[in-house]
């Protein structure tokens, strides 16, 4: 059947050219796609398939164009010779395309795995970032809390008014606070660098043995009382609380001690007890003295009457009179101690009184071998409101006692001072034998004496105590055996504005 060749020729040639052009453009697009996401296996697949189509299009189109050209140029033989080759190349090319196409599933699976892996990696990365941020935040928070806690603990440790001492398992001091340095009297270097052990603070080794045994057995001690001895030999009464710390985070075992200085508290308690005791004794003495005073007056009156009426028994009556007078003195002393007596009050210059006492006593033979020194307060006058005679009596008594303490040979120092709180101090210090510790709490008791029978009534200090109390003052003693004693009288300084109140109280 004859027919027009043009449509077939045109479609064949133009189609072949179009195939090549479009295949190249497709390859370009596939390459662009691949470059946009190099990790995408599907895009790689599309690139391969585009390459396959390009080979297919080029081989097929060239074959077709060549065929048309050779046939139309009457070279059919040449075409017949090469057609088998172009056909084979064409077959191979579209088989290649088909082969590549069948790899789509594998490419897809690979891509899915890559995507899944990447997604997991991203998720893990996000989680890690989140964890990292949370961790950082937690670390910041914990560090802040730790710093705050450490700061708080350090402040408590450093600012504590109680002594805190940390020791190792062998009780060697590792750390102490400022209060510890003040209490023990040892420097930080002495304690920490020189590796001092805690037992060195104790005045008596037996006390430390007792405490260390207790802490070893019970692992803690609570308010154990002990006496510390400072480097300057000052002793302190302390309460010790402590416990063992087995340590955390690899820290070694250590002991923590909290030590309170209770010396002043105990001293005050002793003074209160003493004052209470003396007050009770004063009441008793006043009652007894009052009851005895009247019969003694009658006995003395009748004795003096008989002396006039019975001159024959003069010697006997004189003895009676003398002893009654002695009894009256004792009763008077007792009344003085119990503060029941009355006396005239006036402005007294303490320095004058002390000066007078020294002048008066220095003439006595007992003071010949005694070196008496006076250290008076200089500057303004030490005026107080009181009874000069009574105050002289107290000071005389203290100086005589000091004379007895030094046993006729030694030093007696009398000093006067004025404190910032408007108090006047009179101190009588000797370097005698001192007072035994057990007697310290009794020396102001009426009739207490360490002198042999007949040499003292035991009323001197108790009368002095009563007089000083009546003057709104206080009397105290510090003594160490073999070193001497210091009696300190504290009296309120005279001020015009308190004259009326003081008079009222007296």
């Amino acid at each position, binding site marked *: 059947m004859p027919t027009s*060749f043009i449509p077939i020729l045109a479609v064949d040639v133009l189609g072949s050219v179009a195939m090549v052009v479009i295949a190249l453009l497709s390859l370009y697009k596939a390459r662009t796609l691949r470059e946009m996401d190099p990790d995408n296996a599907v895009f790689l697949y599309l690139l391969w398939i585009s390459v396959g189509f390009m080979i297919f299009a080029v081989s097929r189109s060239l074959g077709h164009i060549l065929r048309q050209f050779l046939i139309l140029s009457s070279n059919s033989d040449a075409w017949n010779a090469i057609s088998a080759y172009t056909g084979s190349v064409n077959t*191979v090319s579209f088989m290649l395309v*088909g082969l590549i196409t069948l790899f789509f599933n594998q490419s897809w699976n690979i891509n899915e795995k890559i995507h899944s892996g990447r997604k997991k990696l991203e998720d893990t990365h996000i989680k890690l970032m989140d964890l990292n941020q949370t961790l950082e935040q937690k670390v910041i928070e914990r560090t802040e809390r730790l710093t705050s806690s450490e700061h708080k603990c350090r402040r408590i440790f450093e600012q504590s008014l109680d002594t805190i001492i940390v020791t190792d398992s062998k009780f060697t001091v590792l750390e102490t606070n400022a209060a510890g340095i003040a209490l023990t009297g040892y420097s930080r270097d002495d304690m920490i660098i020189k590796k001092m052990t805690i037992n060195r603070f104790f005045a008596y080794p037996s006390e430390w043995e007792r405490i260390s045994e207790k802490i070893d057995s019970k692992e803690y001690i609570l308010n154990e009382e002990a006496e510390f001895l400072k480097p300057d030999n000052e002793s302190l009464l302390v309460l010790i609380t402590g416990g063992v710390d087995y340590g955390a985070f690899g820290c070694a075992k250590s002991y923590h001690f909290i030590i309170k200085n209770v010396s002043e508290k105990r001293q005050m308690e002793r003074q209160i007890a003493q004052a209470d005791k003396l007050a009770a004794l004063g009441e008793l003495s006043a009652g007894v003295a009052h009851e005895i005073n009247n019969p003694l007056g009658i006995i003395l009156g009748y004795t003096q009457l008989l002396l006039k009426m019975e001159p024959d028994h003069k010697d006997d009556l004189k003895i009676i009179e003398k002893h009654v007078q002695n009894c009256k003195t004792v009763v008077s002393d007792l009344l003085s101690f119990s503060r029941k007596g009355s006396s005239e009050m006036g402005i007294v210059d303490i320095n004058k009184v002390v000066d007078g006492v020294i002048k008066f006593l220095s003439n006595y033979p007992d003071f010949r071998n005694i070196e008496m020194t006076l250290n008076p307060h200089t500057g303004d006058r030490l005026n107080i409101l009181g009874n000069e005679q009574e105050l002289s009596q107290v000071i005389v008594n203290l100086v005589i006692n000091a004379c007895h303490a030094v046993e006729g040979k030694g030093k007696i120092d009398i000093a006067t001072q004025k404190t910032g709180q408007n108090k006047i101090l009179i101190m009588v210090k000797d370097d005698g034998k001192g007072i035994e510790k057990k007697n310290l709490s009794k020396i102001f008791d009426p009739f207490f004496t360490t002198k042999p029978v007949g040499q003292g009534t035991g009323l001197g200090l108790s009368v002095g105590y009563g007089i000083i109390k009546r003057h709104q003052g206080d009397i105290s003693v510090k003594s160490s055996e073999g070193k001497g004693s210091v009696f300190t009288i504290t009296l309120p300084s005279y001020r015009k504005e308190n004259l009326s109140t003081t008079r009222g109280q007296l």
Partner: protein
Amino acid sequence: MAGVVLFPSNVFATQFHASAEGIITHQMGHLFFLFSMVVLIFTVTDKGLNVQKGWRLIQYSAFLFVLWNLDAVTAHFFDNQIHAVKIETISIWKMKIITNDDSPFLAWFYYILKLDHLLCVPAMLLLYKGLSNLVENQRQIRLQKER
């Protein structure tokens, strides 16, 4: 056995290939190509990629390639396999389609089959359009990520 050893004859070690093998191989190649395109169409659907315009266009391209392969296989069947059709080029304007039984229907059918570029060029164009669309999509995704 001894006779075979003692009196040997010629043995043809390589197989002889008839010229028909070429067209059969070519036809199998077309069918393989067709099969791969069908697989591609179903795989794209199976993976849910056809929701994207680019992949849909690639599917259409594969479909046209399927048609093209059918066209080519049919044409080759008539002219190269059973030799039922033959073309004689008379001039650049005229040609003659010679069929075995002078069937005009077969001649016209073959004539249409010979216009196979009308299938493969659009198929190629759709592949290009599909790839272009995927490039554009990818560009949009990248822009969104950059924002």
